């Protein structure tokens, strides 16, 4: 019998243009919490998705109890005793807690001895039992949509527990939880440890790791760095190993000089009471304003509100002293505001269209002949200018954008906005899912834009990026702005202090 419940070794996985995992290993012992750490984009989630059967590994093998196994899909993973609580929860809001937990494997009974029916009584009794086990007290028949985020997460954990799992993957489970809820989660983890479950715990929060992890595996840029006992490590040693030696020249030198205030937001409040409220801030000409906060701090929602993608109730936006009315993205674009959205696939690229179509869509009016006909030469010129300026790697302007790497797609989208020559650029997680080399290029582009006098708002969840790139950092927590930090004085600690200022 192997001392490990599950071992992954030699795992490699590539996506078009990016090597996401390169010969990675992970070994899990029963009854231990194994923290998996690394910066965003280090490959943690990809590794977990390989383990859970969502992605197929290009190379590598998985052993369970020393025996090689093959995991086809998530259903297969569950059967083999591997359960995963995803970072983004995917419940079915209109159905009850019990139905969500037993989805796809409802307990059955035979009515009249032959008609198969769902055994609701058993399902809800079992659900009650499970909820007790995860120390939650709410009605199994309640609709999941009515629960809070942390309660939904408990439902997901109960679901994982109900599968009698031997390996439980928790992907950033505390990112949207309050301190009390985190304690509750830790108690559940403690219970599961005693039952001999091996837990993979992904988190960016050092204090949590040092508190509950037994072992720590660190990854960087898709590579395996090493595994250590948690008590050998400190916050500093973890960060050094996560970030590696590249920390020194990770960010370009910035030469921008913030000038007068050009953009101001006053008392901006969402139509959704759980989203952003009473937000006020100023933005200077040529300034890079970083926006920090935990997942769920409503940073994206705020920026989408300012850009007219989401609705607001009260609040004013001033631009060069003039008040703006923004009800849809076009209103903002017409005023010289641009926004690079967070979800590149969801709201950025039009995958089946060409690079030329993607880059020109927001500025087509500029290429019209006689007011009606698009001049292909002008569009081609736009593409070539951007290819040269931002070093976009694409076979041609007619290449479909979906076949480019993430970094090149992002550059095309930056080009799309720059074509309109905006004065204010909102960048939401501009380097998410992009490999390190391309990241640096994006940073250089941002720094150049600020130097040219453009005002930039940059949301980032990567602490080092936020600190390395911002003139000033606005920190949000739970829909409110909780503080501003000057870039020169910013540290991980003072940002986190503001980011965790819950009511």
């Amino acid at each position, binding site marked *: 019998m192997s001392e490990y419940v599950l071992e992954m070794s030699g795992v490699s996985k590539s996506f078009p243009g990016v090597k996401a995992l390169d010969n990675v290993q992970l070994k899990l012992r029963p009854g231990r919490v194994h923290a998996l750490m690394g910066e965003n984009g280090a490959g943690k989630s990809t590794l977990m998705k390989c383990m859970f059967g969502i992605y197929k590994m290009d190379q590598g093998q998985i052993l369970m109890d020393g025996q090689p196994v093959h995991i086809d899909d998530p259903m297969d993973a569950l059967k083999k005793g591997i359960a995963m609580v995803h970072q983004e929860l995917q419940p079915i809001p209109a159905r009850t807690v019990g139905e969500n937990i037993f989805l796809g494997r409802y307990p059955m009974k035979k009515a009249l001895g032959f008609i198969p029916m769902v055994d609701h009584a058993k399902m809800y009794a079992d659900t009650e039992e499970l909820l007790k086990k995860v120390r939650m007290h709410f009605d199994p028949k309640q609709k999941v949509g009515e629960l809070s985020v942390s309660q939904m997460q408990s439902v997901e954990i109960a679901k994982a527990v109900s599968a009698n799992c031997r390996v439980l993957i928790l992907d950033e489970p505390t990112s949207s939880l309050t301190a009390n809820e985190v304690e509750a989660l830790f108690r559940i983890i403690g219970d599961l440890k005693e039952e001999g479950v091996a837990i993979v715990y992904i988190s960016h929060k050092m204090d949590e790791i040092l508190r509950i992890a037994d072992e720590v595996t660190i990854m960087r840029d898709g590579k395996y760095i090493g595994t250590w006992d948690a008590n050998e490590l400190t916050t500093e040693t973890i960060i050094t190993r996560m970030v590696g030696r590249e920390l020194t020249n990770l960010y370009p030198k910035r030469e921008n000089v913030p000038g007068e205030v050009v953009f101001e937001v006053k008392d901006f409040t969402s139509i959704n009471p759980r989203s952003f409220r009473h937000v006020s801030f100023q933005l200077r000409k040529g300034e890079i304003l970083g926006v920090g906060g935990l997942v769920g701090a409503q940073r994206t929602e705020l920026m989408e509100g300012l850009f007219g993608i989401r609705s607001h109730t009260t609040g004013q936006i001033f631009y060069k002293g003039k008040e703006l009315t923004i009800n849809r993205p076009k209103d903002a674009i017409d005023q010289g505001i641009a926004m690079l959205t967070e979800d590149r696939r969801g709201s950025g690229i*039009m995958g089946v*269209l060409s690079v030329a*179509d993607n880059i020109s*869509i927001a500025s087509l009016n500029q290429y*019209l002949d006689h007011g*009606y006909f698009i001049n292909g030469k002008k569009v081609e010129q736009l593409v070539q200018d951007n290819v040269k300026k931002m070093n976009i790697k694409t076979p041609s302007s007619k290449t479909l954008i979906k076949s480019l790497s993430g970094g090149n797609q992002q550059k095309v989208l930056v080009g799309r906005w720059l074509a309109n020559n905006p004065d204010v650029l909102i960048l939401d997680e501009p380097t998410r899912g992009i490999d390190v080399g391309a990241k640096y290029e994006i940073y250089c582009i941002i720094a150049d834009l600020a130097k040219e006098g453009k005002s930039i708002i940059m949301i980032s969840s990567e602490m080092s990026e936020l600190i390395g790139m911002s003139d000033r950092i606005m920190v949000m927590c739970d829909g409110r702005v909780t503080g501003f930090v000057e870039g020169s004085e910013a540290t991980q600690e003072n940002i986190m202090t503001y980011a965790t200022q819950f009511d």
Partner: protein
Amino acid sequence: MEATKSHDNFGKVLTRTITRNPIVFLLLIAAIVVGCIVENFFSWGNLSNLMSNTAVRFLIALGVSGCLITKGTDLSAGRQVGFAAVVAGILCQRRDYNGRLWKFMPEMNIGLVFVIVVLIGMIWGLINGLVVSKLHVPPFIATLGTQTIIYGISLVISDAQPIGGFQKIYTTLINGRIGDVKGFYLPYLMFVALLFGVVFWFIYNKMRFGKYMYAIGGNDIAAEVSGVNTTRTLMRIYITAGIMYAVAGYLLAAKSGGASASMGQGYELEAIAGCTIGGVSTTGGIGTVPGILVGVLVFELLKIILQFLGVNPYYNYVVQGLVIVLAVAMDIRKYIAKK
């Protein structure tokens, strides 16, 4: 159907084209086989017949293509064609025709009738567009509803009677042809279809409206975020579609020499089939005008093949239905396989 690199050899290009458009090639092969075993299949008359049949269907397919490219559909297409045929038919009846429906009316100029029919088509399109883009009713349901409404109104105004006795100029003009050598001629309808094809090619490739349409089909959220007025663009797409159905209905009544409310029934499915066979993807954002022409042509060819094989016409429905499902299934597979 993407541009192929110049250094590829001919064989490679051919293989790729065939594997990407299997139905087109299967049907072409079928046509050749049938042509070899059935007499008169390869005849000039048959070719001219194919051209004039394709012409009207192509116009309808052009109309529905915008809806498909934006991930929508238009099930009211066939009934709109029927409605336009009925209205055109009633307005173009001869003064001295005994069965004239609206006896009180003076004899109308057929050009004026065309304008009226097109305006009505725009209204149907406007209604579809409003329901889809403003009320956010899924296009499938929205146009399923309007389809029934339009059919009902067609029955009311035509009194459920067949309409005949058209002005001579109406039927002779539209059934006009150039040349007649060994049964081969070029129908005016073909020139009308080609003209619209060129216009649509320009709209789809060279105009802002076309670019916005592809953008919405590619990713509607990204389009909206990029400042595209998606509501207005969708409205225009459904209105354009309405215009095309009206034109098709106007031509069809004259081509058949009569009209009735049941005219155009099922044409929406033929149009959707033609588009899909021709490479318009139901997943959105993909489709070209030449592709649509090929798709419609091939689908019409299929109908003629069945006819020449002497297949019971009722089986036509079965075969056509199968081809539609097959075409969409193969299109979807292209994208599933790549995940």
